[in-house]
């Protein structure tokens, strides 16, 4: 998905200062319940016909945000506006119109399809729920959906367990497309697939976006995949958004120390003997001693950050704009951006 297209800029999804907390167990029988903070003050924007990649390691809160957009869990504070609906203000089940506007594809395509239903029943289900079609028209629509995702009528009467991983994911995509949504939350849609199949699915999703102008919230942990699949990228760590911006900028010249650490860890497909020597970087040095204990209100990356200072222990910074697009949340932003201008900055040796 080249960032060259310039789709219209009205927002399909707007997340503003979102906080999501879960109540955990009690430490003592009559003690208060513990609170697990999954998302802390996240703000996101996704324009029509665009893809926003949400990346981070496990426990970063990226899936929690996706589920909140789908209203599979409820936000504690903040607002989510998706396809014109205030998702955070729904009481009880969201209206059917919202379900038609916002759809999802999950990571595990086998688990996300009813195991006792044939492909045609799986695809007919959303049509039955939302549209009053006569059975002939419904069958025609099911075939049309199958074709859209590159499957044939031979797959109509298969059960999910009889399909390969890539085929299952195609069925899941067809099911999401059945109601003609404006926004699809893609929760790690290719993580469970072989690399060769991953690209097939990414290409399929790209083609569908071009044809139908659907927006994607693409949740993933594979940074290289996200760069190909997204226009914009937001990097999360332990519930906080650390850096965001156009995909090429964030992935090409990552600025936040966490983003850099993350990209540095991606295996480089060029064998070691074919690369130049790896430059030393900040992460090889011992962490500076700041003499303050971290607090929950502070930056979550403080325990691994080579740029940390005392202010990082007690507060989380406001986002700073980055030249080239996007923002980063770092107290050392000035140092980071200055350092970025000089050549001895740790750059990824891959590209």
């Amino acid at each position, binding site marked *: 998905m*080249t960032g060259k297209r310039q789709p219209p800029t009205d927002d399909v999804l707007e997340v503003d200062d979102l906080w999501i907390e879960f109540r955990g167990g009690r430490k003592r029988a009559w003690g208060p319940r513990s609170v697990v903070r999954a998302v802390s003050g996240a703000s996101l924007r996704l324009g029509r016909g665009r893809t926003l990649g949400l990346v981070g*390691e*496990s426990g970063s809160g990226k899936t929690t945000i996706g*589920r909140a957009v*789908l209203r*599979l869990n409820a936000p504690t504070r903040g607002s989510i506006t998706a396809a014109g609906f205030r998702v955070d203000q729904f009481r009880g*089940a969201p209206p059917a119109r919202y*379900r*038609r506007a916002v*759809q*999802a594809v*999950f990571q*595990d395509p086998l*688990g*996300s*399809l*009813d*195991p*006792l239903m044939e492909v045609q029943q799986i695809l007919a*289900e*959303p049509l039955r*729920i939302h549209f009053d079609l006569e059975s002939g028209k419904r069958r025609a629509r099911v075939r049309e959906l199958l074709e859209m995702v590159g499957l044939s009528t031979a797959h109509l*009467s298969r*059960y999910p367990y*009889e399909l390969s*991983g890539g*085929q299952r994911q195609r069925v899941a995509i067809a*099911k999401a497309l059945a*109601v003609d949504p404006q926004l699809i939350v893609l929760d790690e849609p290719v993580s469970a697939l072989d*690399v*060769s*199949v*991953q*690209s*097939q699915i990414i*290409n399929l999703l790209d083609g569908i976006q071009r044809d139908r102008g659907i927006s994607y919230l693409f949740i993933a*942990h*594979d*940074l*290289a*995949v996200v*760069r190909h699949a997204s226009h914009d990228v937001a990097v999360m760590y332990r519930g906080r958004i650390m850096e965001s911006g156009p995909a*090429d900028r964030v*992935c*090409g010249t990552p600025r936040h120390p966490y983003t850099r650490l*993350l*990209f*540095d*860890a*991606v*295996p*480089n*497909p*060029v*064998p*070691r*003997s*074919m690369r130049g020597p790896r430059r030393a970087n900040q992460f090889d040095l011992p962490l500076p001693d700041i003499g303050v204990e971290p607090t929950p209100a502070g930056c979550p990356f403080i325990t691994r950050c080579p740029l940390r200072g005392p202010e990082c222990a007690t507060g989380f910074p406001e986002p700073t704009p980055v030249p080239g697009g996007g923002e980063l949340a770092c107290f050392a932003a000035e140092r980071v951006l200055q350092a970025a201008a000089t050549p001895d900055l740790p750059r990824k040796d*891959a*590209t």
Partner: protein
Amino acid sequence: MSESASDVPRLPAADVAAKGSVRSSRFLGRLLRQRSLLIWGTVVGIIALSAVLAPLLSPFDPDTGVLADSFAPPSTEHWLGADRYGRDVLTRVLYGGQVALLAAVQAVAIALGIGVPAGLAIGYAGGWLDRILMRLVDGVMSVPFLVLAIAVIAALGPGLHNAMAVVGIVYAMSVLRLVRGEVLSAKEELYVDGLKVSGAGGPRILFRHILNNIAPPIIVQATLMFATAIVAEATLSYLGLGVTQPTASWGSMLSEAQATIRQNFFLAVPPGIAIFITVLGINQVGEGLRDLFSREITVGRLGLNVVRKTRPTASEREIFAGEPDQPSALEVRDLSVSFPQAGGQRVQVVQNVDLRLRRGELLCLVGESGSGKSVTAMSMLGLVSHPGVVTASSVRLGDEEISGLDFKAMRSIRGNRIGVVFQDPLASLNPTFTVGNQMCEAIMEHRDVPRREARRLTIDLFERVGIPNPELRLDDYPFQFSGGMAQRVMIAMALSCDPEVLVADEPTTALDVTVQKQILDLLVGLRDERGLSILLITHDLGVVAEVGDTVATMYAGQIVESGPVAEVFAQPRHPYTQGLLDSIPRNVAPAGALPSIRGTVPQPIDWPVGCRFADRCDFATDACRRSPVPLAPTVDPGHSTRCVRVDELRLTGIGDEQSQVVAVLSRASGRDGVA
């Protein structure tokens, strides 16, 4: 390492076995294969039928007899004799069957009618409704049902229907519990989230989807309940709380027989046998249904499958020719693995694999899922599940031949000389013991050391694999470890007996990239510092480039290319390797569609005679499809490939940027693009 069944990866035996049979008749086919279910089903069917047809089968009236026949012995007229009042016993047994079946149907119907909807509702709704109703259920279940039955009969008067209604209500409680439990776990399934997103409401999700998925345990439970309801009816009638005289029931017949046991003991036998056979039959049907519904294949003894030695094939080729003459740590010749097929044949999922892992080297085995890479590695270690058969002409560990060894010898080799690490570290650890305890057990099993010494060794190993505060972490349980730390524990366990070879099956696939990097650094450190030979199975060519010395690409059960990593990546000799290299997502500005390999790995039964990759290959010609392609050395030393057109093709390798395959020759045919 421990030898528990959970260590052993699930092999695709079920897929292989299921493939090929016609889908629609699969359930019926499974049913017809269940011999005991068919036999007992027939028995129960005959009993039910003869009870229903009692008026046609017997000329006698069950309730009135001829006093002259009192205590008549079995005869041609009265096959089972007659009772005190001269009533025909066989007739009474048949009519008693009617009472028993009707009573059981009533009880089970009430149980399901109350239990299933209530269980569905409270399981799905949860919250305070669940809490209140479950306490009520606990209350009902803590009262013995006979006491309840007596109380109800005292209030409403005697009668079988009142009594069985009580039985039904008591049973409803256990149905409710079962259904609630099943709903609670089904509710967490991802497909339920998918349905919510589709806009399905609560009732639709519950009745159309969840109920179907939890039906099997309910059906089994209902069947077993049916059997106990028959016993309950007999008990109640025996005590006089059920049917009233003179109606025949197995329980009341037993009670009458007891009254006259001194005159004629035989009268107790027919109803007793009737109860016994009916209950036994229904229970067996229940068990049979349970087997029928369980999707899990019945795997025999897991991990007890040794490598059978075969004669070297006629064409004993020297495929390792031209390789640097370095001593090998693990070497396999002609390794094949086959699984039984529905039609009685066997299908080979791994075919004639030759592999050589040199000392101090890290060999990567790569391929898509379904290529057989995991099965290959596990089969060498004797870790292929039961119906699989592993053969090899030679498996050498160092200088020792280990093919043909029995399970016990293989087990000692696996613990002492080959360490194994699996993909999911938490699943490989026993959750109920501390990590230190399991480590010490593993060490003490293979080495004759006291516990104190084992503990010291464990701390050493934990330090070596980079687990901070090893003394403290030793007493933690597996769930207290993160994925990366748990994988370190697994590696420490694999290293505990100082192995020569480490086999790691996708050790970093479930981990985050930053953690993956740490684990890979650890493996590389073990190779460089301790000279450990490592066989790493992975689907990620990025990982191969980072850590591998040599690489073997597998496709459809065969090795299609092998050689030094730098050489294979720079100049692959097989289009499949090139396709895999092209598919790696790379952190570069995107240009057009991502390259991919069209199609998927075919099922073992569909593997073609010729080149197995031909159908997905952009360069395939008729020559490729004609006959099997051998793995042959290329011009480069130590680099071999299984490609007919190896001399014509010039593949681009990893290159410096993402580029499509460019061949010197024009594309072999018009087939183009991605599937």
